[in-house]
């Protein structure tokens, strides 16, 4: 039973990172598939509402593996939260805890802060910005950039693509600007 307890604890980076890295050869060897997740959003657009937009007018059925893959991620989330659930609250950096407490965020149970991301908060200005505007920016930005953390940062850097390095640096710059300069204003709403 010690073994199961060990698996239930949060996994360190040196276990998780290599496992994620192995997804690259796994997908290539299973069927010449290039690792990338944000494309799934494009395939969903092509499938549901192509609206004669050239960018969405292609045979999405050829990319259906990508939708199986992301659906698997969703199921993986269910498995991890039910069978392998870590019962303890997430340990976070004390400085972050102090900062978030200023905005009334002090519940660290769960991976997503329930005080910010919940159906109730969706109908507040803060929730609307974080859930809807945030999500929109992720979808628009990743497609504009031609990939996300998986396609650019992991697959792109693994194959030494310099445009992916540019994109990855821009992801980080955008993230630093949001977390340090803009998010404090959003959280105080």
């Amino acid at each position, binding site marked *: 039973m010690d073994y199961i307890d060990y698996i239930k604890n949060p996994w360190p980076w040196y276990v998780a990172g290599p496992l994620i890295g192995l997804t690259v050869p796994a997908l290539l060897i299973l069927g010449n598939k290039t690792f990338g997740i944000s494309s799934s959003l494009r395939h969903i657009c092509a499938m549901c509402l192509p609206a004669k937009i050239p960018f969405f007018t292609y045979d999405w059925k050829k990319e259906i593996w990508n939708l199986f893959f992301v659906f698997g991620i969703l199921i993986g989330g269910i498995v991890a939260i039910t069978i392998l659930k870590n019962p303890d609250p997430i340990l976070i950096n004390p400085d972050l805890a102090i900062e978030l407490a200023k905005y009334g965020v002090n519940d660290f149970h769960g991976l997503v802060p329930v005080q910010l991301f919940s159906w109730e908060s969706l109908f507040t200005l803060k929730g609307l910005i974080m859930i809807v505007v945030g999500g929109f920016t*992720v979808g628009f930005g990743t497609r504009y950039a031609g990939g996300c953390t998986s396609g650019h940062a992991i*697959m792109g850097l693994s194959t030494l693509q310099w445009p992916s390095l540019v994109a990855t640096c821009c992801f980080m710059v955008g993230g630093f600007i949001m977390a340090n300069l803009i998010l404090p204003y959003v959280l105080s709403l």
Partner: protein
Amino acid sequence: MSNNINLQTSDEFIVEQESHDYEVRATDSVCINDSHLHHKWYYNFKYLAVGIIFGIVFLKAEIISWFRIQEMFRLQSFHMYGVIGSAVMVGLVSVLLIKKFKIKTIYGEEIEFHDKTFNKGQIYGGLLFGLGWAITGACPGPLFAQIGSGATVIIVSLLSAIAGTWVYGYLRERLPH
């Protein structure tokens, strides 16, 4: 379209159509389906399996945690840097080994790599995505895992992300690249 295509040219037409289709799919995408084999749909279950393992790692390593992303962008924790850094290292070595030993797919197909061309979208789009990443605490993959972990309101984030992708496709011709 001329309607006197005989059997031979209609074959050519299909090939042309397929290559056009591939071109569209490959536009601005690092993620393209390179296999030339035509398999039944249930062959895709193996990617579901890879996805499940991937989702478990996402949750167990707390990569999909909003708090971990905030720590990363405040330089308060090494965790995310360690995850992404070691993932790239393992990916890099794997790709080198695949190229060096000309490793084939399980169906004996040669593994193909495509170079990515630079356009300004990687800068503008990258910055925009960075902003969204820090606010939602999720890139597209974690959105799916967060929904699985029971944060059902993230379905709204996912739908917003799909809407964002659609609006990009709609405005694409008018955006600087």
